[in-house]
């Protein structure tokens, strides 16, 4: 089983090879399903000049936001940002480059990166600032823009369960961008809540086949909630 055993035993090993100025694709939506310990390891390593691809950029003291104080992020490609004061400061001062990308286009760009599709057409963003500098084209009388794929030197992913071969299962809406990020990294690193033996996961219910996964590590998670909303009558 050695050949397919993706489990590593330390976060240092998990993120080995990450260097300054690399591109990192991260799963997660808001703070839900983010690879929180892999992000902490990037902070610990102090890697700088990173281009991050992620739907959001965390909050001041959690998620990708913790990479801001030491100016580890050069550029972020995201759909919705600015939930943190330091982000706002760096963006306003031009210290942080932000490439806003529609959420669905961002997801599709990751998928395309992993799937060997260099570019695709979408109506999303046509006639908006997103279309600037992009090819526009009509199909059947409708307008579309050409969007290129995204690939990362690393992809960092949070899954629920995995087997040692790296087959992944996600839980509820913590799935979000994670399966897409997993396909688009040259090196894909996954942290999970539980690792089981190969054969224990139902092959019909594996969300991400192990072929996309290079390293796997067992983590423990805070799972911070951004908007804790309860109903009154409960």
């Amino acid at each position: 089983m050695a050949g397919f055993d993706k489990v590593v035993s330390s976060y240092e090993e998990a993120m080995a090879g990450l260097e300054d100025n690399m591109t990192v694709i991260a799963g997660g939506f808001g703070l839900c399903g983010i690879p929180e310990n892999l992000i902490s390891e990037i902070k610990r390593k102090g890697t700088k000049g990173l281009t991050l691809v992620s739907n959001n950029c965390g909050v001041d003291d959690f998620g990708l936001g913790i990479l801001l104080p030491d100016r580890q992020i050069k550029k972020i490609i995201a759909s919705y940002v600015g939930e943190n004061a330091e982000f706002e400061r760096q963006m306003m001062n031009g210290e942080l480059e932000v490439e806003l990308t529609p959420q669905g286009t961002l997801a599709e760009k990751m998928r395309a990166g992993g799937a060997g599709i260099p570019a695709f057409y979408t109506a999303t963003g046509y006639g908006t600032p997103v279309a600037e500098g992009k090819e526009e084209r009509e199909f059947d009388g409708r307008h579309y823009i050409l969007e290129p794929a995204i690939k990362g030197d690393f992809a960092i992913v949070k899954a629920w369960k995995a087997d040692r071969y790296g087959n992944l299962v996600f839980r509820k809406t913590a799935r979000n961008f994670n399966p897409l990020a997993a396909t688009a990294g040259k090196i894909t690193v996954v942290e999970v809540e539980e690792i089981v033996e190969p054969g224990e996961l139902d092959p019909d219910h594996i969300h991400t086949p192990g072929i996309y996964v290079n390293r796997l590590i067992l983590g423990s998670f805070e799972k911070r909630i951004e908007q804790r909303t309860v109903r009154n009558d409960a």
Partner: protein
Amino acid sequence: MALSREQLAQRVAQELQDGYYVNLGIGIPTLVANYVPEGMEVMLQSENGLLGMGQFPSEAEIDADLINAGKQTVTMATGASIFDSAESFAMIRGGHVDLTVLGAFEVDVNGNIASYMIPGKLIKGMGGAMDLVAGADNIIVTMTHASKHGVSKLLSNCTLPLTGKGCIKKVLTDLAFIEIKNGKFYLLERAPGVSVEEIIALTEGELVIEGEIPEMTF
């Protein structure tokens, strides 16, 4: 009188049909879920990867792995399904969602919409809004008809950066229900007690008034 937030939601809810898959934006659109007509069922799509969004959880039900597109904790309705973000936007972009309701800063007579960015202010991003407006055939924009200072938000040309071009056909404001076609606004209904003249005065884009304009009923 201008419609309240609740009335706006109520009026939008009249556009629902049994069996509709609906995406509700943050703010007033979210309230629409409270006014689904008796005996009718709709299923709510949350673009972070949930079809069949339920009500907010009880304290005991709270689950950090189950949130909506507004990052609020939610529950799943019976028959819900979970999927990744690419699948979620395949659904949206592919036109499979029956109705999308979202807010805006401005709309214009050509169906353009500006809703995500005010230059000079902090730019938070478009999230899924650009995908939603480009993917849906049936969109209702809910907004106030004019600013507090009386500046119309129904324009000949949007002044803010666009979220989508030529994609809006229906706008519900606190004063009026309006259809957009042929490069014009068409007044369909007015809020109870609001006169056609008041609406004309607060509509900057060309407004067509054909025949008697009925009041909305609730």
